[in-house]
């Protein structure tokens, strides 16, 4: 059994302990509040530079602002009352207008006023962005998709067409050198390709003549040997010439 004196002592010690804990908690709360206020003051934008039009004392706070404007008589609105603590006006009788303003958002003026802070923000943003881009690049390198993978099948067809175009161009140059004819203009070829009249897609005159000759022979009842090969050649050349002219017109633009 404990004595009443020891019980009183333990109660007193317990009271002291609670009091000290409360003081420590209070001190911690004060420190946190002070840090929070400091943070808010750091985040709060700086006051905008005074406009050149009129002298202005701009008070910025977290709440509403009170702006005391000194105006000349010809521009006074008369809505304020004379102030005892205001600075004397330079021209005429000074009138004091008290207006309430909300704290202004950070603008270009505030950014110009405090370049070190903005530079620090920009630098941190760039560092974060660079790290993000580097991480994304690494992940993209892991899951890299070739940029032309989607159009691989189209590119194969285009390459085949380009090869045919080169062959056709060589054949045309050889034919034109022999016949001494001028090359067909690209725009004219496109215009012919756009028309729906049959036979105009075969650019070369010799092909048109051969086509007419074959048509006459067929109508006369003759079986033409290798007609399919000739028609396939015509068709592929016409398609290649169409693609070639389309590409040429697109490049010229």
């Amino acid at each position, binding site marked *: 059994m404990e004595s009443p004196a020891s019980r009183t002592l333990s109660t007193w010690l317990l009271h002291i302990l609670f009091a000290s804990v409360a003081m420590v908690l209070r001190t911690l709360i004060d420190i946190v509040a002070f840090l929070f206020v400091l943070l808010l003051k750091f985040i709060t934008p700086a006051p905008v530079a005074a406009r050149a039009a009129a002298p202005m004392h701009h008070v910025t706070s977290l709440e509403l602002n009170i702006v005391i404007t000194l105006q000349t008589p010809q521009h006074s609105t008369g809505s304020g009352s004379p102030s005892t603590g205001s600075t004397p006006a330079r021209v005429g009788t000074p009138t004091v207008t008290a207006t309430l303003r909300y704290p202004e958002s950070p603008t270009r003026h505030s950014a110009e006023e405090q370049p070190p802070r903005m530079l620090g923000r920009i630098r941190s943003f760039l560092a974060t962005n660079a790290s993000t881009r580097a991480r*994304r690049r690494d992940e993209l390198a892991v*899951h890299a998709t070739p*940029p032309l993978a989607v159009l691989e099948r189209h590119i194969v067809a285009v390459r085949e067409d380009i090869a045919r175009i080169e062959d056709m161009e060589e054949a045309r140059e050889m034919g034109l050198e022999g016949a001494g004819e001028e090359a067909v203009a690209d725009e004219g070829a496109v215009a012919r390709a756009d028309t729906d009249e049959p036979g105009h897609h075969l650019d070369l005159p010799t092909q048109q003549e051969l086509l007419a000759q074959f*048509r006459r022979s*067929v109508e006369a009842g003759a079986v033409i040997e290798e007609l*399919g090969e000739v*028609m396939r050649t015509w*068709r592929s050349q016409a398609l290649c010439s169409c693609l070639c002219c389309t590409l040429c017109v697109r490049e010229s633009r």
Partner: protein
Amino acid sequence: MRVDDDIWAVRYDREASRYHQALERHRAGLVKTLDFTLSPLFLGQLKNLHQVALVSFKAETVAGLEVDGYNFADVVGRARACAEARFVDGAREAVVVEGGGAWQWEEEFQLLRDEIWSIIVQLRRDEAKKVVDAIEVRDKQSNK
């Protein structure tokens, strides 16, 4: 990043398909016009092959039947096979686009086979009549 890749792939495909669709549309119109231009040649070639195959069948059959000791079935079958092979080879060679709707020759081939069969039926009837006449002549000669 897989989602980003998919998004970029979709965007890339969409941006590229804009030009690809225009080119495909242009080419489709051109192909249609070219087929419209060349299909009369193909159809005329089929018709001429039909006529040539029929003529060759008739000529070969007549030539085979003029030989002594001929076998009617062999002569007709050989001539029919040659005519059909000639038509099929010519038609396959004249096809510009394999599997295209405008380049079908099977219907014309069926018409040719029907005509050849009708000719064969006529030839068989004539041959039967000729055989009957020969038998009757032989019977008359034997009765005398």
